[in-house]
């Protein structure tokens, strides 16, 4: 995979750090992210905080490609960031993820 010269990739975690169909938190330089692993071992990343009430999604519930916020059950498709209906009305930002050996790499810029 080729990368643009101004892209910044950082290691978010090891692939085994996330259970299948689950999510973990990753903080980097004052920003917070949610890193997801699907049941078929694909990895995704979004902003960490729900766009509704700024609750961290890493304590949420992953169902297929949906993350449910732990506080108000707002839902997002974490592969696209699309909000799935009230109380989640504003889409989540998503970030590119790639696997480098056993490392989950996140493109932060």
């Amino acid at each position: 995979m080729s990368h643009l010269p101004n892209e910044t990739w950082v290691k978010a975690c090891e692939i085994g750090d996330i259970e299948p169909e689950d999510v973990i938190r990753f903080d980097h330089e004052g920003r917070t992210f949610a890193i997801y692993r699907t049941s078929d071992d694909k990895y995704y990343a979004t902003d960490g905080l729900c766009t509704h009430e700024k609750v961290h999604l890493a304590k949420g519930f992953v169902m297929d490609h949906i993350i449910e916020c732990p506080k108000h059950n707002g839902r997002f498709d974490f592969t696209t960031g699309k909000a799935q209906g009230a109380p989640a009305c504003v889409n989540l930002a998503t970030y590119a993820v790639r696997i480098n050996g056993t490392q989950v790499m996140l493109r932060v810029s």
Partner: protein
Amino acid sequence: MSAPAIEFDYSLLGKNAKLAEEKGLASADWYASPIPRKRLKELMQRRNGPAIRDTLLWFTLLALTGFLAYHFWGTWWCIPFFIAYGVLYGTASDSRWHECGHRTAFKTTWMNDVIYEIASFMVIRESTSWRWSHTRHHTDTIIVGRDPEIAVPRPPDLVGVALAFFIVKSGPKEFKRVARHCLGSLTPEEKLYVPESEWPRIFLVARIWALIYAGIIAWSIAIHSILPLMFIGLPSFYGAWLMVVFGLTQHAGLAENVLDHRLNSRTIYMNPVFRFLYWNMNYHVEHHMFPMVPNYNLPALHAELKDDMPRPYRGIIETYREIIPTLIRQRKEPTYFVRRELPPTAKTAANDPGYAHARPAEPL
């Protein structure tokens, strides 16, 4: 020198709304009992089976009691069937509204949404504005000036509480609200917690409701009988009493302005019939702490967390033995509230001021 009078202002636009923000009580971090992530994930799993079974049973019972009430109409025998129909309509709809509003009852989203709309109509809670109101209730549970769903503000209006058993006050208030929504207008408080993008949906649903009610009333007038209204409309009132019996147990008389659901919510043991009607909302502390856990898994969640919880109540009667004297006392002593005792095994640092339960539970 006498102490300054305390203002019991529950408005979301009043002085206490601002104070709650200043004191860090708005949109705050709440205490959550420790539970292994793996176990919580198991308990959060959604299934369609339990909710489909319960919904089929609910609709079957509604049809059966409704048919028998219709069959015996004009005789005294219709009364017990209307009582049963009313409870299934005006009480059971509350818990269906609640669980499907959280979208946890069914695994399939549209099933939650369909039952949510039906139950909202039955319990007379306009679906969109109440979804947002309930969202705020979960953000700021029993925080004065923030929570729009505080059932018994202090000092308690005991006549109002008594009238609530047949939603004599809240029912007409909701109809007034629906009328306002039909005209394309929201209350100032609704504008606080409902995003503008959701307003058109509120107006649409209110107009659909108005058409349904107009149709039922016209039908009753046309046949010179109250019978159609006995099946749609009036059961929201005459069947609400058990909903209120259940609902008051959730928070009435407990602490305000704390950030720990163990101190402002109750978990009560109930018999299987009540748990069917109430869809396990009696595990209310657990529900507030982990709202992603579906109702059919709340007993298992309770078993996981009970060592970190105050003692659950042994039933409705024990609960009302606490609530009734508390509300009467709060008439004269509005700062009084029931202090829930945490067990010695509770896995919290009681002296850590960062924990909500160490906060003084005082009026703002």
